């Protein structure tokens, strides 16, 4: 939204004169209603939309999971056919990873990254909007397959040749390939955007080692994405060319190598698991110090261990392929590299523990989820180490033991981190506190549900339950009380408890929106820059771009060291600090103007993709839209011209600090 902000005035958006672009299309100028959201380039609105989209897909993926557990609860399940079951677990995983986990991390990154580094927006606001809309288009394409002949059914890693035209003749895999390709472009653009933002747009004084850990982890994740996404792009392109245009890449009868897909997929797929977990590590590295009322223990160790997890994460992909006969040298190398990753991860765990050690712990819901992450992720991490031992892994491959492992790290780790973030930052984003009592229900039901669901899977896996088994007979159930059938029933009951836990979160959100109490500006006595502004923040984020002197700048503005008593003395509170910023507000802040082109371009890309399935005429239409939108985009200045070079105000207070694109 384009506004001119002057000291002392409230945030009234100035009216922007419509501007001709391509001689035909005017700029969007709405500041209210749905149009404002559709054409916005404000990183905060985009962040919220990312969150809403991700939450919607979380529910979709969750329902898919519940159907899977219903099918397996009792012998001879008849909820799903074998075919539908295959589609269900494939789409459950795909949805949760690409349409929930990554976008939800993207929501936090989009919203808080500029705030944490003291910037007014991301480096490329329109590309940011484009990423969001491409993600939405990708999600729609992926899920449209349910209604257009059945979804993909090859598992989330979609091994070729099984996913080739011979064994997967329906269009499901085509939709999957295209949906992921589009979502992949979205992530790639997003990652370039965020890296440039972090590297280039930090507030004065904020060196890399004064950045909040959340920002650091997001930076590492974006580097992982920049260098791993192109590899999955290649894999998807090869598969698409084989399925739609008769290429032979995975045609074993022609001499193709069945491991090609596996290598390409996992070179992307393993960095991807760190893409999923590191944002949550970042979130709890903010939450734990705040609620322990201590600085993070060993900040540089947390930062560098995060970076080294990312780096080593590129060299361990083949541990997903131990059972494929790689040969002893490869297996040994990848096995040892995988064990090595446990070291930086362990360093982080100990840093979090030592952060809490001796602190005045404040058990808010956010803190509970953060502690939950530390415990549950450690359990998942330990079973992970058992996979790194190749002989042991050979026994566990494709059993429920693997399913147990990655749900502990992803649900117990990643999802708990994200929920911790919801409770911690909700007052910042919406200006209202989530209900702590409902939050407690939310947390405990999720802890109990998650352990009941995924804990028994360790036992089931070691008893030999295969990973993609869609049905089991009574005879398979075994004898005695604690048999195969019993644990499957426990897991299914657990999954519903888990779902009720999530439901409590949604109830909490609705209740808070209706009648929640207004949040104070600094409800948690927080430490980082995003709290140095109003809640919710103004469109331009900061009235004055902060000058940073410390790690945890906001904390150090509130507290002063009292060397005599060897303690910290409070010298100001958040309200006072924010009011002081308002009084000294910059004049003539210009922000990027809204634009039609991101959403038009994203739609064009979607149509282009559908053309690959449904024929050349649709492709031509899609291409035309993409071309039209690209030129419209290029010819449109990112900041509306009439407010661009706003004249300096008389008090000489004009500052142009955050470069905006």
């Amino acid at each position, binding site marked *: 939204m384009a506004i001119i902000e002057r000291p002392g005035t409230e945030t009234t958006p100035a009216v922007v004169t419509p501007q001709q672009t391509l001689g035909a299309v005017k700029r969007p100028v709405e500041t209210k209603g749905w149009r404002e959201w559709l054409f916005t380039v404000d990183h905060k609105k985009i962040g919220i939309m990312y969150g809403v989209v991700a939450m919607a897909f979380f529910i979709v993926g969750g329902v898919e999971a519940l159907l899977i557990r219903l099918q397996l609860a009792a012998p001879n399940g008849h909820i799903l056919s074998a075919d539908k079951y295959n589609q269900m677990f494939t789409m459950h995983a795909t949805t949760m990873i690409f349409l929930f986990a990554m976008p939800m991390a993207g929501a936090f990154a989009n919203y808080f990254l500029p705030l944490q580094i003291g910037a007014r927006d991301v480096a490329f606001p329109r590309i940011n909007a484009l990423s969001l809309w491409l993600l939405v288009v990708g999600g729609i394409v992926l899920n449209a397959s349910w209604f257009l002949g059945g979804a993909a059914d090859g598992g989330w890693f979609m091994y070729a040749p099984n996913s080739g035209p011979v064994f997967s003749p329906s269009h499901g895999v085509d939709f999957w390939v295209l949906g992921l390709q589009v979502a992949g472009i979205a992530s790639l*653009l997003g990652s*370039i955007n965020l890296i440039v933002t972090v590297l280039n747009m930090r507030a004065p004084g904020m060196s890399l080692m004064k950045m909040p850990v959340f920002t650091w982890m997001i930076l590492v994740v974006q580097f992982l994405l920049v260098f791993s996404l192109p590899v999955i792009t290649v894999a998807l392109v090869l598969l698409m060319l084989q399925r739609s245009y008769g290429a032979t890449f995975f045609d074993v009868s022609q*001499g193709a190598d069945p491991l090609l897909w596996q290598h390409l997929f996992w070179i992307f797929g393993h960095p991807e698991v760190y893409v999923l977990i590191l944002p949550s590590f970042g979130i709890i590295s903010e939450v734990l110090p705040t609620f322990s009322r201590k600085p993070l223990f060993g900040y540089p160790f947390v930062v560098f261990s995060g970076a080294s997890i990312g780096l080593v994460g590129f060299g361990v992909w083949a541990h997903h392929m131990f059972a494929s006969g790689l040969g002893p040298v490869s297996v040994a190398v990848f096995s040892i590299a995988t064990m090595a990753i446990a070291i930086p991860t362990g360093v982080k765990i100990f840093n979090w523990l030592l952060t809490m050690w001796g602190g005045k712990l404040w058990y808010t819901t956010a803190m509970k989820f953060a502690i939950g992450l530390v415990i549950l992720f450690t359990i998942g991490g330990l079973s992970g180490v058992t996979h790194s031992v190749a002989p042991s892994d050979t026994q566990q491959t494709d059993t429920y033991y693997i399913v147990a492992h990655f749900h502990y790290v992803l649900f117990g780790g990643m999802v708990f981190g994200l929920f911790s973030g919801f409770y911690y930052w909700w007052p910042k984003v919406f200006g209202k506190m989530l209900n702590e009592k409902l939050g407690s229900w939310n947390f405990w039901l999720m802890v109990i549900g998650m352990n009941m669901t995924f804990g028994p899977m360790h036992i089931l896996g070691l008893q030999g339950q295969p990973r993609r088994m869609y049905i089991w007979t009574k005879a398979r159930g075994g004898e005695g009380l604690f048999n195969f059938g019993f644990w499957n029933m426990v897991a299914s009951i657990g999954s519903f408890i888990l779902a009720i836990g999530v439901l409590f979160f949604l109830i909490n959100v609705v209740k808070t929106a209706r009648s929640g109490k207004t949040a104070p500006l600094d409800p948690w006595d927080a430490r980082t820059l995003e709290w140095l502004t109003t809640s919710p923040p103004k469109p331009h984020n900061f009235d004055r771009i902060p000058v940073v002197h410390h790690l945890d700048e906001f904390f150090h503005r509130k507290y002063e060291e009292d060397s005599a008593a060897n303690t910290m003395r409070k010298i100001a509170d958040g309200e006072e600090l924010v009011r002081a910023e308002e009084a000294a507000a910059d004049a003539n802040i210009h922000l990027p103007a809204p634009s039609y082109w991101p959403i038009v371009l994203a739609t064009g890309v979607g149509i282009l993709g559908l053309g690959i399935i449904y024929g050349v005429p649709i492709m031509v239409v899609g291409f035309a839209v993409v071309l039209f939108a*690209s030129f419209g985009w290029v010819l449109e200045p990112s900041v509306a011209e009439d407010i661009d070079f706003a004249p300096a105000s008389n008090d000489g207070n004009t500052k142009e600090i955050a470069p905006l694109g």
Partner: protein
Amino acid sequence: MAETATHTADHSTEHGHETSTGLTNNKLAMWLFLGSECLLFGGLISTYMLYRGRVSSGPHPSRIFDIPFTSVSSFVLLMSSLTMVLAVSSAQRGDDRRTNLWLTVTALLGATFIGGQVYEFTTFIREGLGFSTSLFGSSFYTLTGFHGVHVSVGVIMLLSTMGIIRKGKITGNKAEVVELIGLYWHFVDIVWIIIFTLVYLIPS
């Protein structure tokens, strides 16, 4: 898309903002994009190297490659990097006339290379190497085709930039826009050197 987007999205250079790294946002983004592209071509080249000797039917590479012809078209492409440098240097001196001239020459050289590739592909198909003929065929056409698409996108960007400069409608820093397209163009050329060496010169 990224390439059309990145080079004009940022407005900052006109304002003379200081960034934390000293590089402009646009240039940093372009470098990151090219870094990502390295992995893209890395994947495609690896696939080709894995499959180049696997000729279950159809002609063998050594029989159909016309190395003198491809050497000439490679030379044309490499020369276009030189003209691109001249275009960037003219743009930095603010010489619109020369900038346009060198951009045109670069685009023409690029188009010549694409013409050569189209001729080469049609010849190969006539000699029996279809896209589905063998693993070699699929991976050859995919790798060189991807590169061809990159050159074509470059030509479109060159021509569009020229048109936009001529109409005075450019939205960013003119010299920087030309420089960014130059970065992309050189990258595509360097990739071709690798492809030419691995695909054509090293016998399989």
